[in-house]
C-alpha cells in the first residue's frame, strides 16, 4: 500500500513514528491512566488493561481534571508516555500536557483516523507541519 499523508493541525511540535493504538473513548489522564506504567486502569474505559506507553495514541479528546496535563508529564518522565498523540479535536488539558512533555500532537485531520487506521498499524506523525502518514 502506498503511504497516505493526512493533513491536520500541529498542536505540539516534533516528529516521530510508531504503532497506532485507537481509543474510541475520550481519556481523562487523571484517573484513567497509571502514571507509573502507562496502563489504562479504569475498568469503564475501552482501553482497560492496555498500555499506552510508546504508542501513537489516537483518541477523540481529553476530559476531566486539568491535573491531567501533569499526569502526561509524569508518564513522560517515567518513560511510559505515548510517542505521539492524535485527537479529533484537541482541548487544553492534552495540548498543555503534550507540549510540556515534548510529545508530538496533531488534531483535526482531514480524514477520520478511526475509519482509516487500525491498532498496530505503523504511522509517522509530524507536529511541526501537522500531519499523519501511514507507513504500510
Amino acid at each position, binding site marked *: 500500500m502506498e503511504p497516505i499523508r493526512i493533513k491536520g*493541525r500541529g*498542536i*505540539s*511540535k516534533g516528529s516521530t513514528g510508531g504503532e497506532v493504538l485507537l481509543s474510541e473513548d475520550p481519556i481523562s489522564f487523571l484517573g484513567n491512566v497509571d*502514571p507509573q506504567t502507562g496502563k489504562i486502569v479504569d475498568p469503564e474505559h475501552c482501553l482497560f488493561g492496555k498500555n499506552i506507553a510508546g504508542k501513537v495514541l489516537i483518541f477523540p479528546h481529553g476530559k476531566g*481534571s*486539568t*491535573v491531567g*496535563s*501533569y*499526569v502526561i*508529564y*509524569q508518564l513522560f*518522565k517515567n518513560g511510559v508516555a505515548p510517542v505521539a498523540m492524535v485527537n479529533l479535536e*484537541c*482541548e*487544553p*488539558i492534552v*495540548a*498543555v500536557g503534550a*507540549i*510540556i512533555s515534548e510529545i508530538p500532537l496533531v488534531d483535526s485531520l482531514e480524514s477520520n483516523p478511526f475509519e482509516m487506521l487500525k491498532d498496530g498499524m505503523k504511522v509517522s506523525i509530524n507536529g511541526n507541519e501537522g500531519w499523519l502518514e501511514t507507513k504500510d
Partner: protein
Amino acid sequence: MYLTPEEERIMAGESGPTLQKAMEILVALGDIYEADRLIPIKSAQIAGVSYKTMGDAGLEWISDLEGRVQVPSILNPAGMDLERWQEMGVSAEFAEKQQEIIEAYRNLGIEVQCTCTPYYLQSFSATYGDHLAWSESSAVSYANSVIGARTNREGGPSALCAALLGKTANYGYHLDENRVPELMISVDCELEPSDYAVLGYIAGKAAGKRVPLFRMQSTPHRDQLKALGAAMAASGAVALYHVEGVTPESCRKDFELPEEQLTIERSQIDEVYETVSGDGITECDSAAVGCPHCSPEELEDVAAKLEGKVVDNNVWIFTSREVAASNPKLVESIEKSGAKVLCDTCMVVSPATDKFSHMAVNSGKAYAYLPGMCKVAATIANIEKCMEKGGGAHSD
C-alpha cells in the same frame, strides 16, 4: 495567530527553554480557541497549588521550570495553613511536599499569597477593563462580573505561562462579543444574605457555561455577589454573570435581553437548604466558613455570631493571610470561642477535611464540591445556623 518579532524569537528558543515552552503553550491555546494575537495582562493568579490535587506530577513540572514571572502573580489556596498545618491534622509527609510546591513557585518570583480572593489584597488591585490571567473559578467569576475585568478561566499551567510571559491569548472573555448575556434569570423573591450562595448553586446548574443576566428584587453587595459567583462556577461552569443595575458592565452597557428566560422561586431555594449534599446519614460534625476566603466584613459577621459562645466541634474559618493579619482583633475574638481562623487553604482543597463526615457550610461552592472531592456530606445554612448545627456553638 499573529506573533510579534520578539514573540517569534521567544518561540524559537532564543530566551531559553522555559519561555519557549510557555510561548508554545499560549500559542497552542490561541490556535485552539482562534485567538488573533497575544495581549498584555496586569496580573496572574495561578491554580495548581494544593499537593492534594497536584500530586508528584505537578510538583515535578514546576520544579523543572526556570525564570521569573513578568507581572504580579499569586497562588490559589494550598492544601494546608502553611504555618498551622499540624493543628489541622495534616501529615508531615503531606506538609513537606506542600512546602516543596510553594518553594518551587517562590523560585519563579511568585508571591506566596495562597488565596481565592486576590481582589482583597492591597497590592493586587484589578479594575474595570483590565486583562488578567486568573485561574481559580470563583476569582475568575468575581473579576469578570463584579470588577468588570477580563479573564478566562485559566488552567494552572496556562496561568503560569501567562505570568512568565506577561501575556495571554486574546480569546473568550477578553472579547466583547463573548461577554453578552445569553440567559435571563429572574429571582422571584426577596433574598436574605445567605440566600445568594444557594441561588448560585441552583442558577449554575441551569446556566452551564453560559453568561446569565439576573433580575433581582434585592440588591446584593460584593460579598453576596462573591458567594453567588462561586456557587455558579462550581455547580455549573459560569465564568461571567451580570446583575441588572448592580454589576458594572450591566450598568454601563445596554445589553439586549436574552431570549431564553427562567425564574427561580423561594421554594427552590428552601429545598436546597433542606437537602443534604452527598451521603449525609449522620448529624453535622463540623462547620466551615470562607469558601471563597472571608472578607474583613465576613470575619466581623462570624465574630459577632460567636460572641460569648463556645463551640464543641471543629469550626474552621478560612481567609487570606493578609486579611487575617490586618484584622487581629477579629481573629482573636473568633478564636476565643474555640473556632480556628486558618489561612492559605480551604475545606475543599485540604486533605484535613476528609476526617469529617458531615460539614455545615454557608458556601454553594463547598456544598457542591465536598461530597465529590472530600467524601464529606454538606449542609448549607446561614452563618448562625452553621455555627449552631455544625459547630455546636452554645453560650459560654
